[in-house]
């Protein structure tokens, strides 16, 4: 059981601002049902752009609901400009703190607020979303990770997961998250050792290495998600694979092919490698 504060329990069991507003001036939704939490924030403004009424609808755990409710406590009666400076830490503080692994609930609250304000102002919401999706499991972009990373001064993959959920699923993006951390803070990236002079590899060595990387780095990740991969053939630098299990009908299959498998093989074996999906031709 999570160690929730009494304030979290209070806002969860008796939220004061749950509901909907007819014809709201601001209305934004963040998150989605697949990820396990989502928040819709609605608000009414007066002529001075003061938030006179606000409601939320939240799908999620106790801390997600409590964060939504307390967010509205924090913004009610404020002007849009005043509300815009509310941070996720303000939400967590107002709840007497949140468990580390639940900090993403407070981040969701503040993202909904920022999105609502940006849309109301007619500005592009900076996370909506020109970034590149890093975490496929939860659809978290590099833009969001970098933003939260800077704001919260996060230094480890675990912390990034607690605040953004990125990396909390299959774990395939941990390397990319580490790269973002080191790009922001300038720390040396913890990357696996690169193979020595790739060009010096014989065909046989390359084949062995490809097999090893597929077995050790790629299949376990796919299997974790109910999928699998079969190595069909290696022809020079062309690696032919077939998807199995849930990968075979996965929408992200093309991304997995080049973005995950190709990238991994190029990184660890030979920069010239290309990967071909031959699932269909075999079927």
């Amino acid at each position: 059981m999570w160690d929730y504060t009494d304030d979290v329990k209070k806002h969860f069991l008796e939220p004061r601002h749950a509901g909907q507003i007819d014809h709201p001036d601001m209305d934004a939704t963040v998150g989605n049902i697949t990820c396990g939490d989502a928040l819709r924030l609605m608000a009414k403004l007066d002529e001075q752009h003061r938030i006179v009424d606000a409601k939320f609808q939240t799908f999620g755990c106790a801390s997600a609901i409590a964060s939504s409710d307390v967010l509205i406590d924090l913004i009610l009666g404020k002007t849009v400009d005043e509300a815009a400076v509310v941070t996720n830490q303000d939400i967590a503080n107002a709840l007497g703190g949140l468990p580390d692994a639940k900090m993403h609930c407070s981040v969701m609250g503040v993202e909904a607020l920022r999105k609502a304000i940006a849309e109301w102002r007619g500005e592009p919401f900076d996370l909506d979303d020109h970034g590149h999706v890093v975490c496929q499991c939860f659809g978290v972009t590099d833009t969001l990770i970098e933003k939260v990373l800077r704001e919260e001064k996060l230094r480890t993959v675990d912390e990034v997961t607690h605040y953004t959920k990125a990396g909390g699923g299959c774990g395939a993006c941990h390397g990319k998250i580490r790269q973002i951390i080191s790009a922001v803070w300038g720390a040396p990236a913890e990357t696996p050792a690169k193979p020595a002079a790739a060009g010096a590899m014989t065909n046989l060595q390359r084949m062995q290495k490809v097999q090893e990387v597929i077995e050790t780095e790629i299949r376990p990740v796919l299997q974790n998600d109910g999928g699998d991969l079969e190595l069909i053939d290696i022809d020079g630098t062309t690696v032919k694979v077939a998807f199995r299990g849930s990968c075979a009908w996965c929408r992200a299959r093309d991304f997995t092919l080049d973005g995950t498998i190709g990238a991994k093989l190029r990184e660890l074996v030979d920069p010239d490698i290309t990967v071909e999906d031959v699932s269909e031709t075999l079927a």
Partner: protein
Amino acid sequence: MSEIIYLDNNATTAVAPEVREAMMPYLTELYGNPSSVHRFGGQVETAVDRARQQVAELIGCEPDEIIFTACGTESDNAAIRSALATEPDKCHLVTTRVEHPAVRNLCHDITHGGPFRSGYRLTELGVDSQGMLDLQEVGNALSPDTAVVSVMWANNETGVIYPVEAIGAMCRENGILFHTDAVQAVGKVPFALRDLPIDMLSVSGHKLHAPKGVGALYVRRGVRFEPLLKGGHQERNRRAGTEAVANIVAFGAAAELAKKNIALEKTQVARLRDKLEAGLLASCPNAIRNGTAESRLPNTANISFEYIEGESILLMLDEYGICASSGSACTTGSLEPSHVLRAMGVPYTAAHGSIRFSLSVFTTEAEVEKVLEVTPPIIKRLRELSPFGRD
């Protein structure tokens, strides 16, 4: 808080009063070591032997086929590690995607890094949307280098019962060791191992009203065994370490109680479970049963309430003293919902809102009625809070 309504018996169970009574002397005056030569220790050894007999009677085997362990997880580890140690020329393991972490993570650990690094291959069998295995797929997975097949008897989350007899027979035909994690089945489903093609079977005490900290591994006579814990000669050289006598005695008493009560599982427990399940499915819109109703434990109901999140449901039930569990991401300790429901292809809209109610012979009609009364308003309330679900 109001009185507890405990419907989380697949997680753990209450220690039965007669079980507690049976173990008390071994926590007080009878503190001897069963290995000692003196009579003071000897009488303790007799108590351990008696417990072994009681557990053997529950699962229909000989007492010398029972090894007492610390828990179900230890039994699983001992069984699978022993299979690999005694079959050094084989390098393949077969299990399912819906195993308890005790088997699943162990198999992942053994095969970590794949054949190149670990020397072992793992096949994890999938299940269909009802949580069932395809026997033909099991057969296809077996190969000459398969050392061990481990398939759970009954799933802890859905209660789905797997065809262990048929799978065991296929393994036997192919000279492959078969292990089953029967932690959820023992005491709920009657069986006699002497009639079954099962080589090793794991049991846990605290799932059948014994205290936590004791389990057993059945190893069929004639199956070679390599101990996990090495040291002294306890458990006929199969599990070193001074016996947890009080826990073992309690386990024996619990086994005897389970044998006495097992007929109630199919009648009383199943009836209350069916009443609870049918009532919730009828009174809550967009509620779905997870797992087949054809082949499952009598005590388990796993229901998904679509468009809402499991932890919220649990915490609201908790306000009424009702204890259940969920496969939602927020309660699994990870950010992903239950691996069992995902393996069954349960959509995320439903997996996040899954609740498991697991009953016991101590569950009463009044408790079930209380749950039926308070749950629908909770579901309705959370749906009102959710941006997705409308009743």
